[in-house]
């Protein structure tokens, strides 16, 4: 693995015509994953806020789940960046010597702020549970119980007051934090867009619309993922009731589910339209002004990446789900298909921005093609290949499994109020 120094990027970059010698696809799959996962974090958080801030009672259970799930997703927004760094051991330096003229320097600060908000909110929601566990585990013997109790004692941060008044304040604090969290979440995304939009050397990325486009598509993917998860959970519940003989209860669940889905689908459509409009505006503007870079941009968009941009992203990822959601007599299956397509469409949008922005040379005289490494033969081709991306996707579910052992988001009787 270390016998020969390998030029970073040479293993997955195919050059065509004239490309500067030092140009490679330096930002690969992990940088596609980064804005995509960040988008999902916010989506999960925004959904939980719908209950905590706007009092959407029917979203109560999914709100519990999505809040904890957004915590599990959170480290995963940073993981791609860590995997992408050439010097991962120096990852803390943006916090030590932040150079604030760089968009990336703010990442540590914005990200930490956001993490603290999510953590605090979870603390306020689950504090009663933590305290109860500390008392309950006191009765039980055994090393594992002692360890568990220690964890809960740490989690309470020494606040054992679970009187009526204290819990009321907890709830208020959670609401305030959820409200603050929404703009911070949007900032986290807009700022991811700024990282790209401010690179003046890159003809495709440089656009003041980039941050807004990123926020819109982040909200779209976030809502889609949460709706999808919600449907899966509700269907599972209805299925359990029906098996237990509660056909009436199952019917109630279905009714409630449809109402929530209808409401959420309307939000989804709205944001989808906004996202597509902005992207179209960007495209039309580039074509109309036809700056120096337009020749090569056009040849990439209408030629080499036509499949990725117009077929997979706009048609399959935007237009088809839009039609599926708008047409009357929508069924649940159709909704689920539309949601999966929306999630795919947003992923393709990230791909087309990150990889598409490096598909042409800075010389405007050549192209670069990204061959994503499938079978890794080194750490580098693992990190920046299919398996690296799959690791990133799998991590939140693994984290959720661990977190859920201490913060049971799927149990119904945990709500503090």
């Amino acid at each position: 693995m270390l016998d020969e120094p390998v030029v970073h990027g040479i293993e997955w970059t195919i050059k065509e015509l004239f490309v500067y010698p030092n140009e490679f696809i330096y930002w690969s799959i992990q940088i596609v994953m980064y804005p995509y996962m960040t988008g999902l974090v916010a989506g999960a958080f925004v959904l939980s806020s719908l209950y905590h801030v706007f009092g959407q009672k029917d979203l109560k259970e999914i709100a519990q789940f999505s809040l904890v799930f957004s915590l599990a997703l959170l480290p995963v927004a940073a993981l791609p960046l860590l995997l992408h760094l050439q010097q991962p051991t120096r990852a803390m330096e943006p916090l030590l010597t932040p150079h604030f003229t760089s968009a990336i320097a703010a990442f540590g600060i914005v990200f930490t702020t956001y993490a603290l908000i999510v953590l605090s909110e979870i603390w306020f929601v689950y504090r009663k549970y933590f305290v109860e566990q500390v008392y309950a585990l006191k009765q039980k013997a055994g090393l594992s119980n002692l360890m568990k109790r220690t964890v809960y004692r740490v989690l309470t941060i020494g606040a054992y007051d679970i009187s009526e008044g204290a819990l009321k304040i907890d709830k208020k604090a959670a609401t305030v934090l959820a409200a603050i969290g929404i703009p911070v979440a949007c900032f986290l995304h807009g700022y991811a867009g700024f990282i790209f939009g401010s690179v003046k050397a890159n003809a495709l990325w440089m656009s003041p619309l980039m941050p807004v486009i990123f926020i819109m598509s982040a909200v779209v993917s976030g809502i889609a993922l949460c709706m999808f998860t919600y449907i899966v959970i509700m269907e599972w519940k209805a299925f359990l009731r029906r098996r237990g003989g509660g056909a009436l209860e199952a019917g109630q669940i279905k009714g409630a589910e449809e109402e929530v889905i209808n409401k959420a689908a309307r939000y989804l459509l709205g944001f989808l339209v906004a996202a597509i409009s902005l992207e179209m505006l960007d495209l039309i503007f580039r074509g109309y002004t036809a700056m120096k870079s337009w020749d090569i941009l056009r040849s990439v968009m209408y030629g080499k990446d036509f499949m990725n941009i117009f077929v997979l992203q706009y048609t399959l990822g935007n237009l088809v789900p839009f039609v599926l959601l708008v047409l009357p007599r929508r069924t649940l299956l159709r909704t689920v298909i539309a949601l999966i397509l929306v999630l795919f469409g947003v992923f393709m949008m990230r791909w087309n921005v990150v990889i598409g922005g490096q598909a042409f040379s800075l010389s405007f005289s050549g192209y670069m093609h990204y061959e994503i490494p499938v079978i890794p033969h080194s750490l580098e081709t693992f990190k920046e290949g299919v398996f690296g991306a799959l690791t990133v996707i799998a991590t939140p579910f693994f984290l959720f499994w661990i977190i859920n052992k201490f913060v049971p988001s799927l149990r119904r009787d945990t709500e503090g109020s």
Partner: protein
Amino acid sequence: MTCSRRDFLKDTVGGSLVSALPLSAFTLISQAEAAAALSESKTRWAFLVDTTKCVGCGLCVKACKNENEIPYDAAVTRTWVERYVVTKGGSTHIDSPMGGRDGFIDDKIRDEEIDPEDIAKAFFVPKLCNQCDNPACVQVCPVGATYQTHDGIVLIDREWCIGCGYCIMACPYGVRFFHPEEKVADKCNFCYHRISNGMDPACVENCSFGARRIANLKDPDDPVANIIRTERVSVLKDEYGTKPHVFYIGLDAEVR
């Protein structure tokens, strides 16, 4: 100290004794004072490339790789030479195999034969870091691992670079890359170790044709600086507002 701190700093900066200076001296003076002293730095390095003289031998690239310990067989390089062949029909063929490290001894461009009768003009263009006055790469570094020295050179701190690649993305000239062994961003620094010690950069010294020359713009008697001042020179991609400091003679409109 008999001389004022400011004079002391000025002299120190003018010379090459920065590290010999006790660090406390820097913390004692105000930033404005330091900035004033620095703006009076006696050096602003610049580069002059005469494309009309370049024959595409690539010995500059070879020398650069050896001098700066860039793995010789790696595709990345701190400086490179591009070949432009413009046909009478108006099409432009550009190449730079291995950055021109082995020169250009074949008339084929990417295995394509070009009829010599059809060639309207052909020339070679050496490229290197432009040591911009407003370096986009420095602006975007999240940790302060790349910076501009008082004499105008943009350096990279190999101990502090996290390898995020943002600077590589930000450079409109494509001069930056990841060093295959150091695993940090790397680029030309006009051979800072040589120019700071009275030598020419390796590529300049090893150019037999005078196509590459180094200049100190702040020295009124510098002959190369005088060429930049008095003759018609141009720069690459000035539309990015980076204020590049590699000046070119005989730059064609086709040059990217």
